[in-house]
């Protein structure tokens, strides 16, 4: 039985039992090259649920604080390993109620970066097929077809994945994926090495350059599963006006800095912000740098242990790292 079949079966069962009011998974988008989130309320509709290496959406975004509608809805959802960490982060803060959730863990061997594929073609993509594990066959509007190895076109985050299986789930869709030995090897920070090697001035310049094109659509914060302020976001507040409303590299950078600090110790590097950005800003950069600092200083990996609190939400006089 494929993972997709498992997902459909779990969803149908949970809906039929009344365990959940609706089930969140993934379905095909406007054509077979695209996947979008799916909300299924009727067991008869579970066949629209799919699982392919295009299912990049972190569905935890839809259950973050205040989102369930109605507020007491019981929700089922699929999580990949990376998504599950954001769920754990929300559970650590008691921002979601475990009792109202039904979580299906989907072991994942890597998500394909559609943008990488788009850049390979002048034409629009109309179909992305996965004839077997590891093979990606892309067809364009003009009928051009090319095959890629899945590993060559993965999202960058997937290349560094340490958690292919969900850390928190009620049911698991099929056999687990092989896990790296996490005791043996720590996180891979090579993606930010170039940035870290810059001088302070160069870093400032690099960040201003990177954020210059931001249009402040706030997609990154909306899609961020641990960013929970919604319309109260200080980045949009005029009282006090911490971030000027005018568009400019410095204001954009300040906006992202504030976001980084608000999710520091809670950001799990899921990469949802990067994928949501319509102007393709590598939003990830600042968060990764912060995550590395936190890992080096506190040995803390956000969203990995249910019984932990985010590191900056502890008032602990006895932390080993600062003596008294």
């Amino acid at each position: 039985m494929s993972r997709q079949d498992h997902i459909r079966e779990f969803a149908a069962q949970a809906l039929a039992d009344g365990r959940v009011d609706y089930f969140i998974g993934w379905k095909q988008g406007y054509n077979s090259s695209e996947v979008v989130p799916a909300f299924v309320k009727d067991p008869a509709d579970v066949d629209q649920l799919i699982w392919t290496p295009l299912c990049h959406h972190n569905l935890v975004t839809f259950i973050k604080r205040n989102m369930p509608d109605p507020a007491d809805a019981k929700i089922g959802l699929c999580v990949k390993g990376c998504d599950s960490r954001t769920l754990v982060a929300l559970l650590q803060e008691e921002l979601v109620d475990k009792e109202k959730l039904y979580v299906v863990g989907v072991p994942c061997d890597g998500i394909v970066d559609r943008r990488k594929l788009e850049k390979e073609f002048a034409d629009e993509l109309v179909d992305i097929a996965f004839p077997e594990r590891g093979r990606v066959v892309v067809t364009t509007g003009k009928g051009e077809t090319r095959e890629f190895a899945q590993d060559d076109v993965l999202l960058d985050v997937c290349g560094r994945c340490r958690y292919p299986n969900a850390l928190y789930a009620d049911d698991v869709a099929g056999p687990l994926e092989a896990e790296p030995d996490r005791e043996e090897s720590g996180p891979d920070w090579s993606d930010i090495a170039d940035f870290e090697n810059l001088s302070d001035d160069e870093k400032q310049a690099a960040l201003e350059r990177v954020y210059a094109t931001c249009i402040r659509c706030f997609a990154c914060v909306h899609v961020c599963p641990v960013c929970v302020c919604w319309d109260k976001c200080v980045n949009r507040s005029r009282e006090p006006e911490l971030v000027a409303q005018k568009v400019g590299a410095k204001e954009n950078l300040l906006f992202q800095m504030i976001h980084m600090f608000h999710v520091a110790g809670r950001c799990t590097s899921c990469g949802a912000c990067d994928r949501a950005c319509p102007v393709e800003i590598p939003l990830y950069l600042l968060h990764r740098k912060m995550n590395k600092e936190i890992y080096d200083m506190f040995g803390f990996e956000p969203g990995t242990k249910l019984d932990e609190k985010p590191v900056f939400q502890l008032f602990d006089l006895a932390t080993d790292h600062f003596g008294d």
Partner: protein
Amino acid sequence: MRIGVFVCHCGSNIAGTVDVDRLAERALTLKDVVHGEDIMYTCSEPGQAAIQKAIEEKKLDRVVVAACSPHMHEPTFRRCVDKGGLNPYLFEMANIREHCSWIHTDMPVATDKAWDIIKMAVAKARRLEPLFSNEVEINKDVLVIGGGVAGIQAALDLADAGLKVTIVERETTIGGVMAKLDKTFPTIDCSACILTPRMVDCGQHENIELMTYCEVDKVSGYVGNFTVDIRKKASMVDWSKCIGCEICVQKCPSKAPDVFNVGLEPTKAIYIPFPQAVPKRAAIQTEYCRYFQTGKCKVCERVCPADAIDFEQKDEIVQKRFGAIVVATGLDVFDWETGYPEYGGGKIKDVISGLQYERMLNASGPYGGHVHRLSNGEDPKTVVFIQCVGSRDESVNRPYCSSVCCMYTAKQALLTKDHCGSDVEVYVFYIDIRATGKGYEEFIKRVQTEFGVKYVRGRVSKLYEDGGKVMVRGVDTLLGEQVEIAADLVVLATGIQAPEGAKDLAQKLNISYDEFGFMKEGHPKLRPVETNTAGVFLAGVSQGPKDIPATVAQASGTASKVLGLLAKDKLKTSPMIAIVDQKNCVSCWKCIDVCPFSAPEKQEQRDGTFKSHVIETVCQGCGVCVATCPVNTISLKGFPTDAILDQIEEVLQPTPSH
């Protein structure tokens, strides 16, 4: 708005490096500033009068004083403007001394910086609003944690003044370390003879409740209104029945280490630490009890005339409320066996700690006061004392002086001569002698001259056994040569360390401690018994090593501070606390996570949702929640966010060069 700016010379403290006159004049160029004045000593009576005069004459509605740290004189000036007719919170202080004049030497540069600081203070002053204190009822009962001489003294002083006091002590009896001592320096009066009457007073005082064999489990609340969970540990003896007859102790077949006698000889699994224990009640150390280990025995139950043995007893939590807490948790003796392998690490029988020697000297100790060699029971001919074992030694992470060892070693040396006769050879190895108390230096001189104790200045590098003797190898730094002494008995002047569990307790109480686990006082000179948590006070060695006179004096000082606090029926709360603007609260509860005082709570709204609410009386105004709140909807009264933004903008304006 009409702001007055007063720039203090502080003699030459500020005026020496900052051009004070020019700043006062220049302040008038700032928006809303209608008065600028430089004053020699603003905190002096004429200085304060000048402020009040200006408030009246210039109709000031905000006052900025550029002087020292608000730690020093903010309360002074708040009172001053209050008397001058302004709300005390319409005052802002610019620190141009600690933050400026004291750390700079170049006058033009320092003056520019002082100008920036003053500009910022004025910017903040514009945003200040009047604030008003609240009053809160206080509970007048006092918790004293620790029943040693410090706790006893503080409790008696407080109880005599009419307050209800609860002493929580983790052993079965009060008395602490002082109860273990033989004689006390420099007067050589018997420790038990002076302590036990105080212990009895505590036991019988109508205002004192003794909770021995108890520990503090949890502390919540705030000054005037603490709630404390106290764990009554299971003693397996019903203390309401136990009469302290010790028959159970005599008949108990199981041996157990004797903590009171510092492990010299074993006691029984059911034990009473010493005859004058208060309360005199038995307790079972279950890990050594035959019944608890094998399921068979119950001898104590059979012989107890009061039917007090209760093998089913469980720990119990008692919740009590207090207005103030005194921490008098005392000390542990340095664990020399781990720290000093070169002294045999506990393997040489005739090398003992200072506290063990106290018990050996003591007439009611395990040997009836007979000083002898533990290896063969013979009277010693040569006794060597080694000072600073676990003190002033960075190699064992004890760089501090334990402050009592020089004196107790001299006392023990004298008592050795007294017990063993004047022909016994007594040597003391020392680094230097610290005898700073009243009559201490004279005492040392007497021990050296009258009693002929030989002081050798130097460290002992090694102790080893040879031919039935303990060989003491060291150096005499005055003669500059190696010495080796064949000793019969070696006594180590083991130092003081913070007791086990001190850090845990400090965390429960939200008070700070130093790297060695001693509790931190509010100010080393001016707030020596207060902590930085209002309502929590310190007494005795919990705060740092000290001898009995200093401990007792400090305990009485602590008691007077507690009395001062609880003399009022209501406490004024600071109005400078956090407040949640609930319309923007997104219920992320980060404020609850980070608050060290448990001030924010989840408050139910009319629609059934919950939003954060800061309990006014619990909030200490530290601002952690304000900084944490992602939607910026918690503000600290007296520190409006806009004021801080204005200050930042002000300082970012380029200063025209001097």
